[in-house]
């Protein structure tokens, strides 16, 4: 893939992100922030992709750290989000009245 194809994908994905997120009600801002935190943990893939071809102890150590960081992001992010949302779920009547946005 060349840069322009990547830009194409980037632009479209950014639009998707804007559209999806712009509907979020206030109540869910904090869980959402933490869920997106989990998603950018995807950088973990970056570490996995290059660790084999990287030479030298320093590089490998740094990449193990990067992978660990990414994993913290992913697992921690999803767990924390789930914990928060679990509390919302406990409520008798979960339907949200779409207060602020729109």
């Amino acid at each position: 893939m060349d840069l322009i194809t990547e830009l194409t994908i980037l632009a479209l994905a950014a639009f998707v992100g804007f559209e999806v997120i712009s509907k979020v009600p206030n109540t869910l801002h904090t869980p959402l922030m933490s869920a997106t935190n989990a998603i950018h943990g995807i950088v973990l893939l970056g570490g996995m992709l290059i660790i084999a071809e990287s030479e030298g102890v320093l590089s490998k150590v740094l990449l193990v750290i990067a992978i660990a960081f990414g994993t913290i992001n992913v697992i921690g992010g999803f767990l924390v989000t789930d914990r928060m949302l679990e509390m919302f779920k406990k409520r008798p009547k979960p339907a949200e009245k779409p207060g602020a946005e729109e």
Partner: protein
Amino acid sequence: MTLAIFLQDPDFIRLLYIVAFVLFIVGMRGVTHPTTARRGNMIAGVGMAIAVVATLLIREVGDYGLIALGVVLGTVIGVPAARQVKMTAMPQMVALFNGVGGGAVALISYVEYRDALDMGGNPALEELIPILLAAIIGSVSFWGSNIAFAKLQELIPGKPVGVPGQQFVNLALLLVAVGAAVAIAAGAESEGLFLLLLLAAAVLGNMVVLPIGGADMPVVISLLNALTGLSAAAAGMALDNVALIVGGAIVGASGTILTNLMAVAMNRSIPSIVAGGFGGGGTAPGGGGDGEERPHRSTDATSVASQLSLADRVVVAPGYGLAVAQAQHTVRELADELEKRGVEVSYAIHPVAGRMPGHMNVLLAEADVPYEALKEMDEINPEFPETDVTLVIGANDVTNPAAREDEGSPIYGMPILDVDKSEQVIVLKRSMNTGFAGIDNPLFYNENTSLLFGDAKASVQEVLAAVKAL
């Protein structure tokens, strides 16, 4: 054997990535609706698992032992942290998680550049530019987030730490980082320059966030979140990885929107937040300005208890202090007790009460406050005139009538809870100190306002005991 070949087929792996990012999007759509939020989060998690498996299938990926080591390390650190963090500490947690993401991007970019040098020199611009961008943004985000964490966790003072002329210092640092990047892009093949770039960005991240008042932190975290997303997308462009690009772009967009929503709700502009120096977390004395103490009425738990139990309608307006004191469970108990006595209790939720959007919702949900009792600002405001007693618990700015009336006030124009319109107002706080915005609150001096000083949890406990004793 043929299965293995099929699974390792680059096109198959790319299809898996498409599945993964589709699940991210579907998941995030879910997270934006209360009824589907939890399932959405899980769907996004499945997407992540697919992305990881797809990556492991790639033929060039190896060093599985080291990968496993990283994953295990991350799990061992991440899981307990996520399990044990208190709801009140969420802002810090989000900052910390955000930081490690940025850190990972910076490290990966650095190693990629080293690899390229090992292989004989700078990579093609198409790959190099994203690497440089990812390195700068990732480093800024890592260090900035860590400072934000330290401030919120009170490891370092939450107050704005000002350095004279620091705007210039920041500008200089940015120029160094960008200059190094341009030099590399222009052909310089130097690990040293790359390290300089990382270092300048790191110092910049520190310098930008240090002077920002602890209370502006959530906006800053959200901004840094957007940056981390962008850096991940840049890393994805360097690595030709669609899942990274799409995931990063979504996070970037989401962070941008949330930053904006928060800034608007606080009536602050993002540049002025980043410029720093606003709001010190409530230690500056009232900014009324004329030095003269205006009279206020303080009250005690027994009077409050009798006022409450005589009321028909009570509204609780919680704020940051509720989170600090962790008074949510006690408040719920008090409400239960009052309802037993026929008092109708509801909660007025201001969108930026506390230090995170939705902070109050999460806290009160944790304490099992029934959902119907929580009312958003627009819903509850018309009801204050028919309210007998409003109990302001650790809220300050979000109840400040100056936002409505005083054009000179820094928060003028911010929508507030009109608690002052209810018949009686009781404010629970520890002192006459200001809140986040560092400005005086005329509410406290109103005829119909009385103050119950003390830690919110302790005060509510006393009131509860007094109600029970009635």
